[in-house]
């Protein structure tokens, strides 16, 4: 019997991957990457520019049949993020919002104070908030207090592809909140990074640049899909506890060319006639 699907805000998801739609070389590459990744959701943004590319993009989103998760990317204050979220709700006709409040324009680190303020207001306005946050345990607790039903801690700054920079804190966060759905968002660069966080028990992964800027984005989308499934299966299988001291996996008993002291009594003895 299969595992129960990941459920976020009451919606059961068919996959544990969320995929960003930015920085692909062409719309057709994005379409093929979506097919290869089979993501549960696609992240999008709201911007002033549209044009011909905008129309193509809209049709592509509709034809993908995927759940749309608009973001507040680039917002530098809680107020700006709330206003952007309201525009996204009107534009995409959805209550879901990937909440980004950026506190530093160099490393794009979330602003924990603005994030919590915006989450409180957006929950009050009826949004389903998916907050992009750091792995800080207290910030995460405040986001849950605000009414967020999912957390999206970063692995590393957006677009860096560095993989988990603070594994210990990420794992402690997972241990502190074993039942809260958590999607690792941002900073994943390799399928092994995605597999790693899934093995630690995170519920899903949100990717963009690692796929879109790969030499072959479609192949990479497929590799990530395999890695995420594999990591999840590894977590569910219950990994062994790592040990400080080596233990031979092959039995010592009966090893040839040794003194016979470890041979079991019932072992057949070779004797001269």
């Amino acid at each position, binding site marked *: 019997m299969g595992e129960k699907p990941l459920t976020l805000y009451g919606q059961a998801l068919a996959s544990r991957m969320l995929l*960003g*739609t*930015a*920085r*692909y070389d062409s719309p057709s590459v*994005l379409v093929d990457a979506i097919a290869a990744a089979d993501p549960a959701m696609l*992240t*999008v*943004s*709201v*911007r*002033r*520019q*549209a*044009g011909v590319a*905008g*129309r193509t*993009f*809209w049709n592509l*989103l509709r034809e993908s049949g995927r759940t749309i998760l*608009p*973001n507040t*990317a680039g917002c530098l204050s809680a107020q700006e993020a709330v*206003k952007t979220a*309201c*525009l*996204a*709700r*009107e*534009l*995409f006709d959805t209550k879901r919002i990937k909440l980004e409040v950026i506190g530093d324009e160099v490393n794009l680190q979330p602003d924990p104070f603005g994030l919590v303020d915006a989450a409180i207001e957006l929950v009050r306005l009826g949004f389903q908030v998916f907050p992009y946050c750091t792995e800080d345990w207290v910030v995460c607790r405040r986001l849950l207090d605000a009414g967020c039903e999912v957390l999206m801690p970063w692995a590393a700054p*957006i*677009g860096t592809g560095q993989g988990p920079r603070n594994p210990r804190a990420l794992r402690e966060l997972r241990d502190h909140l074993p039942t809260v759905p958590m999607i690792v968002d*941002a900073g994943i660069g390799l399928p092994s990074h995605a597999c790693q966080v899934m093995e630690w028990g995170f519920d899903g992964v949100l990717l*963009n*640049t690692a796929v879109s800027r790969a030499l072959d984005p479609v192949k990479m989308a497929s590799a990530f899909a395999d890695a995420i499934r594999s990591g999840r299966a590894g977590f569910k299988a219950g990994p062994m506890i790592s040990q400080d001291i080596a233990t031979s996996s092959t039995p010592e008993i009966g090893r040839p060319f040794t003194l016979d002291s470890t041979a079991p009594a019932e072992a057949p003895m070779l004797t001269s006639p």
Partner: protein
Amino acid sequence: MFVTVNGQKTSLPELSTLAGLLRQVAPAFPFAVARNEEVVPRESYEQCRLQPGDAIEIVHPAAGG
């Protein structure tokens, strides 16, 4: 009168509505609009009377991560 549309100063006849402005600008579908930082629901465009100096934002779906 003048309003700003996505940060650009735009001339409009007096007593214009948001619907009138949108006919003039003809933004690509789909779009959403905010007037003075408040979203205007699409069913209210005809009733939304613009005032001189209003700041209008018109946004579209875009790629994002």
